[in-house]
């Protein structure tokens, strides 16, 4: 039951993300546009390039979708609404997100196109930059909760949401989550102006529809993760818990898209330099501060 609700919730979230993306790129609000776009993609031809690695080409979109769904599986929408409340929840989400990389490498290699291939390898470079900034803020969150259970993590934020308890970690996690979803300004693998859509360039029709859906679900998953780890998940007065979760997830997703709208794409060298020379020391500092605060009983 909760599996069904979560999947429907993710789809609804993906729809909202698509709607907002369309609004930002085109300027007008068309509630039916994402559905029309999806239907049109399904109605269009879907071809395979001339000398593909067929196996990787076909697997990649599905794997991306699965990775995004698995990441959402350990995130609670309410105290009981969760697919799997794993004891290693905080670690499991990292494991699921690691397969986004695998999916994109496959999508880059599979179609045998230069734009796609460069796009795929670009994401590997991006992972090297951002991955520590996903893991280390989660570590600090787990320190405060003294547990990797995602439900316990939400429970630990009864007093102060982690967004205020550890603002540094929140900021780093938010930026890194943009990079995971390869959203602007980190859309290097699928850059339109540099690679003519990169990893997406050779996908068409239904395959492209799955790839795009996977990416949108990924955005929702990351927004949900941000909400669970830093915004107190379902916590909030008056409204029922799942409404709070939904509101927070949508707000974070909107913030993610808006941030990219107002920023140009980051250069590879800057991405690596900033993440390693600035981001990781800050993340370590965050862990240290949180450790001190926890010991001090704050």
């Amino acid at each position: 039951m909760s599996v069904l609700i979560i999947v429907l919730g993710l789809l609804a979230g993906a729809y909202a993300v698509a709607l907002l993306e369309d609004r930002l790129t085109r300027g007008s609000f068309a509630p039916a546009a994402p559905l029309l776009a999806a239907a049109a993609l399904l109605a269009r031809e879907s071809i395979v390039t001339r000398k593909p690695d067929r196996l990787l080409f076909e697997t990649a979109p599905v794997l991306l979708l699965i990775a995004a769904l698995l990441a959402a599986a350990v995130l609670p929408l309410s105290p009981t609404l969760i697919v799997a409340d794993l004891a290693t929840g905080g670690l499991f989400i990292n494991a699921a997100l690691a397969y986004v990389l695998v999916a994109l490498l496959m999508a880059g290699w599979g179609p045998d196109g230069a734009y796609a291939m460069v796009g795929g390898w670009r994401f590997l470079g991006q992972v090297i930059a951002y991955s520590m900034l996903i893991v280390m803020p989660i570590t600090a969150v787990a320190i405060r909760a003294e547990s990797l259970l995602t439900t316990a993590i939400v429970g630990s934020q009864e007093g102060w949401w982690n967004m205020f308890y550890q603002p540094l970690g929140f900021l780093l996690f938010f930026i890194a989550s943009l990079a995971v979803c390869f959203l602007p300004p980190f859309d290097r693998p699928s850059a339109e102006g540099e690679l003519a859509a990169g990893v997406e360039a050779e996908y068409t029709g239904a395959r492209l529809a799955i790839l795009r859906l996977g990416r949108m679900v990924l955005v929702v998953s990351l927004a949900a993760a941000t909400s669970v780890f830093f915004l107190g998940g379902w916590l909030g007065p008056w409204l029922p818990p799942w409404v709070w979760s939904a509101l927070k997830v949508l707000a974070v997703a909107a913030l993610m898209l808006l941030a990219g709208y107002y920023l140009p794409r980051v250069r590879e060298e800057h991405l690596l330099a900033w993440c390693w020379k600035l981001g990781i020391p800050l993340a370590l500092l965050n862990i240290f501060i949180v450790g001190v605060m926890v010991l001090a009983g704050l």
Partner: protein
Amino acid sequence: MQTFFIGFFGLAAIVFAVAVFRTSSMMRSALALLFSQTALGALFLALQAEFLGVLQIMMMATEMSIMAIFMVMFMMDPGGLGGMDMSHQKRLSMIAGLGAVMLVSAIAAYTRWQELASLSQAAAADEQIRHLGRELLGRSMLVFETAGITILTAMIATTAVAVKVPAENASHES
């Protein structure tokens, strides 16, 4: 049920491992190795070693992807379309493989499974993590810290060796 999953993931790991050597595409080879390792991770999960399993699944994705880019960069014909024969030192690898199989079978044969099974039931997952934490930051701390520092040193040293000092800079310094 548990036995079924153990068998399933065990077989999957073996199938993917075989696939590593059956293809000449570097990319497929690397990814097959990745999924073989992922299947091992799932096997750990089936064995109720949750932390170990998730960790294995997570680490391997990034590691194997990084291996893949090096294989593609350094190998000729990374797509495996040129029909180049990728295998070498066949006799040696056959002997090594056979030896490994014999060693593993011997261990399996000489383990007293009955005794182990009666020894203990697996602890609950969160209990395991707690134990693991105490182990890592207690008795085994020195071992792990040493290993960590050693790896860090190796990384820095490798980078330092790999970076070529530009000629004009070198002459300035000397």
